[in-house]
């Protein structure tokens, strides 16, 4: 498929020129095109923030909900219609701050969705406060003395929680980000892709250059199927590893576990409902 099929004409993109979000959008379109997923079979669920505006900029079904509430609707959409490809996508503040509890429990639930986080280590849309991933010492108008909360490590956390696919990418490398996204989307079960993203307006510390200098790709010596090794890799701070950190297959998904598709594969959303007889029987049990 040509990534052009996702293009929308006549749109005014609200991102700042030079922002890493543009690259992420291109990588995502590329990945979807190569996976042959047409817009009609794709739902992108987002919260609120700069990253969360992404479904307004390409052709897809979308649910642009509340700040921090990306994962609950995404999980529900997938279970109601498993035939759809569901991507839950948002910023670091949205996903790990306001939405932290859903992050924990969505991973436990293991729906077959891809969770993409644009991690610019700052709150962009609200003009530059610290996010959970902001680095120690990062100064903002609110964190006047610099951040002193332990930065949140989404990768280690996801691995600890049992996520079956955990990866890190860098927006600055569109090609490899595309490849990582392809793997994540194809993976059955919950897949996290935390994408390091430069914010040219509010993060003057973790810039494109900084990310370039402080990341490296994991090579073949890394075995993503070894959970312990993956965990160790996720903890590395001196240089941040990129690529698929952890991967395991065969974990049952939420949709499979819930039981609704044991007998009948028809998506819930398309089933015919005739409940008169069943209700009659049910009511009689109460006599």
């Amino acid at each position, binding site marked *: 498929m040509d990534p052009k099929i996702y293009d929308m004409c006549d*749109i005014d993109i*609200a991102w700042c020129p030079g922002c890493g979000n543009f690259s992420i959008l291109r990588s995502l379109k590329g990945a979807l095109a190569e996976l042959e997923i047409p*817009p*009609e*079979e794709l*739902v992108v*669920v987002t919260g*609120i923030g700069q990253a969360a*505006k992404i*479904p*307004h900029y390409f*052709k*897809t*079904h*979308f*649910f*642009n*909900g*509340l700040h921090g*509430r990306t*994962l*609950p*609707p*995404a*999980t*529900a*959409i997938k*279970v*109601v*219609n498993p*035939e*759809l490809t569901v991507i839950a996508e948002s910023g670091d503040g949205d996903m790990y701050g306001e939405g932290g*509890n*859903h992050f*924990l*429990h969505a991973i436990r639930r293991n729906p077959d969705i891809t969770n993409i986080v644009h991690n610019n280590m700052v709150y962009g849309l609200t003009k530059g406060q610290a996010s959970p991933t902001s680095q120690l010492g990062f100064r903002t108008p609110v964190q006047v003395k610099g951040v002193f909360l332990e930065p949140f490590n989404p990768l280690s956390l996801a691995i600890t929680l049992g996520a079956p696919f955990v990866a890190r990418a860098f927006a600055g490398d569109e090609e490899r980000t595309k490849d990582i996204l392809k793997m994540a989307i194809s993976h059955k079960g919950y897949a996290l892709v935390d994408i390091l993203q430069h914010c040219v307006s509010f993060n003057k510390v973790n810039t494109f250059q900084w990310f370039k200098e402080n990341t490296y790709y994991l090579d073949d010596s890394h075995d993503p199927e070894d959970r312990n090794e993956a965990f160790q890799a996720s903890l590395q701070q001196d240089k941040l590893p990129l690529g698929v950190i952890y991967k395991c297959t065969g974990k049952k998904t939420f949709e499979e576990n*819930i*039981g*609704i598709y044991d007998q*009948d594969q028809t*998506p*819930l*959303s*398309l*089933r015919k*409902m*005739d*409940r*008169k007889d*069943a*209700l*009659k029987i*049910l*009511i*009689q049990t*109460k*006599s």
Partner: protein
Amino acid sequence: MNKKDVAIVLCGAAGQGVQTVEHILVRLLRQAGFHVFATKEYMSRIRGGINSTEIRISSERVSAPVDRIDILLPFHPDALDHLKARISPETTVIGDRKNICLDCPAEVTDFIDVPFAEIAENIGGRLFINIIAAGVVLGMLDVDMKMVSDFISEFFVKKDEEIVRKNIEAIKLGCQRGKELRDSGKARYTLKNPLAKNEVLLNGAEAVGMGALAGGCDFLSSYPMSPSTGVMVFLSQHMEDFGVVVEQAEDEIAAINMALGGSYAGARTMVTTSGGGFALMTEGVSLSGMIEMPVVIHLAQRPGPATGLPTRTEQADLELALYAGHGEFPRVIFAPGSLEDAFDLTKKAFELADKYQIPAFILTDQYFMDTFTNIRPFNLEGIDIEKHIVKTDKGYKRYALTEDGISPRGIPGFGDGLVGVDSDEHDEDSHITEDLDLRTQMVDKRLKKMELLKSEIIPPELVGSEDYEILLIGWGSTYHAIKEALKELNREDIAFLHFKQVYPLYPGSQEYFDRAKQTIIVENNATSQFGKIIKLYTDHSVGGNLLKYNGLAFTVEEIVKGLKDKLS
């Protein structure tokens, strides 16, 4: 003593099996053809404390709690103290002498000593006490022994034979004692016309749950919270036979956002919650308003603020339901008074939510959830489920501006179009907009649906004479108690207007008020919240009120007395 109905109260600590007695009695008595009504009040704890269940048995339909106790079965020495205000010389107390505490202020004039504990020990242990007690009641009411032992066998079907046998022995011994009492004339009730034979026995949670199933509910996401959990448990039990996704969310915020996502994808979704849990959902309610996504919210009220009294009842979250969520958007709020209402209105809530793409509320309360009554089986004619979903085509616009404000709703994966929804102000195609004229149009579009909703309002039900001078007003779960109180008062000049839909208000309400010389509202809260809604949406200021907010439901006597005081 020859009453048309008997009020039996069982009272003991949590964990003493009062619930088992209740369970057995109400079902057997209903099978025996009596009308039964059972309601409980209990503490927020798993063991200990002191709880009570009132069971009314009658040859006429009976559906409201009374203060009066005809027969009291105390299982705990604190029982009499707990119920002292309700014990009168008319009360027959049956039980172990050791449960009649000596320094109890309650005046027990009619005590029948039945050594439950001793009898139980003889059979094999104290755990048979409650079964024996149930037997005594069944015996006094002359229930057929065969029916009783069949029921017990069935009830303990999963236990081993020895246990079944002992339980049957226990209940038989109890029945025998009961018969003896009956025959000795010590406790005689002539309840005529057993007519309830073909009826079913349900509590509020089951009626709401069945209404949800009838309304096409196929997705419930919720977080446990008394007294709303019953509906989640009910649907969980029927997940498989009805094809319903039931998911316990990590918190209430996830619950409502899941429900909205599910609805977006095409399911008919619901949440069930209570006060504090609902408070957490209010941002989600606003999202439903903005993205015009149907969701049914069952809000089972309990006394607040904050944690309040988790297992008690109140009607104090009406204003919260009405104003929950930031910004301005339409909604409907139903408040069932009867089990039939609960079924019909829950079903209707799904229909309206879907048709108008709005949040629809069912407001119940702990009293309503936990109270059993026998009723005729629900009418299932015409319960065909009509989904208001369109197949999309290429140019589909989710928020197309239409004459009446309703944009045909598509879902992803059904048709060729793309379906977007956006919590920001949006254009017809659901993309973020900063076009401020469009903003105004979109607000108008959403609010316009309020007008359409007004054409479907359920009128209030007038009980009593059309020719009233005094009009009682009530809403939700107080229905039966006020109705019975009205009957008791037996005055031609008083009628009762019951609201099952509390928002938007029925436009004809004003007329009812105008015809009255005096209006009195009865509410289970401290600030007369529905009275305020009436003041706001009609030109009437309710004249007087009868309010109760100690955590218990109104009894018939309380209403009778309260009204007599006001009217004298």
